[in-house]
């Protein structure tokens, strides 16, 4: 029996910021050399958060080359939008990023509203903000749960899903469905908040900070978690901006770029919240940014409940907004408007605009071109997952395979949004 001599494990430096490789920045070519093995991770790999394919070249257990491939859940959302009137596009939008569904709807609805210059009543703005923040909590909980599962911390996943269910209960209460709600409409939201929502929401808000404390107790100081997360996937601020990172991925590198603060939409200029930043730019800092952001979202939702104005939740501009149901029985004009809006849709003035909002994953932008017809001429979504997954390669090379899993998890990509 002969023993196999194992080469000594490579000594990996800590806190080495990622540098942009030459050539294609989103791909790292392996060095020419013998004894390399190319392994195909995905597209169906439990650790890739959906159908992400990573073509990894390994030297032993160390990643030396990486090329990411996406597109496995491409469903042609942008082409579909071009075939639908503006109204019919709303249910499509949440299905792109199925974790941050409400943010996608807001971006699309906001872009169209800007184009047709419709006034949204203040109460509708606040209701939208309330659900946008609940959705942010939902999205960060999914991130936390799934990335903990990848590290083997299965119980955290169950805790996170428990709170996520409470958020979805609130969505169900107001919108009738748990996800993909079609709640924001052009000119406002579909319905006012139901009876009992405030009490239920306050119960959740009283509970949630304690739960976040628990997650931090479980993970933030946990030596296993720290050893797997600290110093992994480090990216410095300059590289992060150059690679187009946004949201918690960028704030983890110390850049306080938050569209809620930089270009306030809805009523974000009327609420108090902190923009959480960390400065090392590693996976641990991105994890901390997301987790601490949940506290801020709870704060914003509280302020929404406290100071939400009363009034209508839908604009009364009947050229764009469906008339209330009861009017259809008594008013001929309402019937005509209803018929025209449902069958033909409304015409939007020609033009182009880009409407960015702060989705849980970063800058989610909706670029809209109209030719004056009832359908968008071209719609393009700036998906933060699509952009952030470009950095997988530069963050993963010269690390162990296990660290690559942490990198992909910490970027928090949702493939439905990346592929659209």
């Amino acid at each position, binding site marked *: 029996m002969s023993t196999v001599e194992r080469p000594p494990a490579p000594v990996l430096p800590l806190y080495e910021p990622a540098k942009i490789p030459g050539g294609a920045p989103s791909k790292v070519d392996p060095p020419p050399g013998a004894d390399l093995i190319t392994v195909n991770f995905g597209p169906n790999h439990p650790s890739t958060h959906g159908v992400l394919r990573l073509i990894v070249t390994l030297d032993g257990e160390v990643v030396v080359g990486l090329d990411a491939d996406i597109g496995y859940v491409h469903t042609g959302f942008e082409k579909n939008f071009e075939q639908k009137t503006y109204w019919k596009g709303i249910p499509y939008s949440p299905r792109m990023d199925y974790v941050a569904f409400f943010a996608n709807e807001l971006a699309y609805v906001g872009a169209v509203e800007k184009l047709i210059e419709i006034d949204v009543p203040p109460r509708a703005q606040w209701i939208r903000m309330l659900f946008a923040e609940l959705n942010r909590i939902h999205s960060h909980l999914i991130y936390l749960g799934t990335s903990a599962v990848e590290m083997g911390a299965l119980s955290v996943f169950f805790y996170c899903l428990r709170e996520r269910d409470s958020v979805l209960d609130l969505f169900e209460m107001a919108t009738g469905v748990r996800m993909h709600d079609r709640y924001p409409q052009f000119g406002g939201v579909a319905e006012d908040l139901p009876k009992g929502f405030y009490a239920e929401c306050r119960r959740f808000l009283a509970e949630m900070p304690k739960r976040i404390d628990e997650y931090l107790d479980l993970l933030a100081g946990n030596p296993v978690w720290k050893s797997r997360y600290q110093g992994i996937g480090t990216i410095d601020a300059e590289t992060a901006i150059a690679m187009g990172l946004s949201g918690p991925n960028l704030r983890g590198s110390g850049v306080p770029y938050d569209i809620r603060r930089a270009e306030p939409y809805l009523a974000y200029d009327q609420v108090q919240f902190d923009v959480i930043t960390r400065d090392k730019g590693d996976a641990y800092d991105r994890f901390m940014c997301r987790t601490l952001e949940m506290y801020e979202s709870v704060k914003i939702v509280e302020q929404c409940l406290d100071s939400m104005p009363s009034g209508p939740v839908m604009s009364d501009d009947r050229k764009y907004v469906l008339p209330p149901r009861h009017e259809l029985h008594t008013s001929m004009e309402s019937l005509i408007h209803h018929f025209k809006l449902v069958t033909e849709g409304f015409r939007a003035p020609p033009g182009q605009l880009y409407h960015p909002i702060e989705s849980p994953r970063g800058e989610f932008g909706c670029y809209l071109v109209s030719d004056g017809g009832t359908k968008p001429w071209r719609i393009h979504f*700036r998906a933060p997952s699509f952009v952030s997954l470009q950095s997988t390669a530069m963050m993963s090379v010269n690390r162990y395979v296990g660290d690559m899993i942490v990198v992909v998890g910490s970027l928090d990509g949702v493939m439905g949004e990346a592929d659209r």
Partner: protein
Amino acid sequence: MTTDELAAAVTKAVPESVTAHEDGLDMPTLTVAAAKLVEVATYLRDKQGKNFLSAVSAVDYLGYGDDVAGYFGTERGRDVNSPGSWGSPMTVAAPAKRFAVRYHLAHVGDGPTDRVRLQVWLDDGEEVPTVVGVWPTADWHEREQYDLMGIVFTGHPNLKRLIMPTDWAGHPLRKDYPIGGEPVQFTDAV
């Protein structure tokens, strides 16, 4: 900085680069000659602080405005207080060429984001230089537009299909790409 000032500053730095400019509904929009794009991009990044490329969006204008008739409204939408402005037919401005490639830029750091849009007009078969050297994030953005719209970015280090299968024929977001009824991949699969 107003759009006029910005256009003047860019023209001063890179002569004969900006062919038109407008305020736009959302942000200043500069129309740039394709040959000067990289110079303009470098100038905007280094001297105007546009360090963040949000998105690269290509638009196909084939048949733009053909099916639109009887648009009611004014140039900036509809004026509810003057009903006389309704019913006036309006034609949309004809596009300069078939394709437009638009770059949405922003400043990330201290101060306001100051978004700016660059647009380059292209005919079928014309190419636009890559801006990967200016903003590395353009890598996948340009590959996506190449894949779905068929815009060729000259000098891109890895211009391959990103979203569609590598052996796909055609570019699905073009307006002359057939919709429905045509045989697709796996049609003959049993």
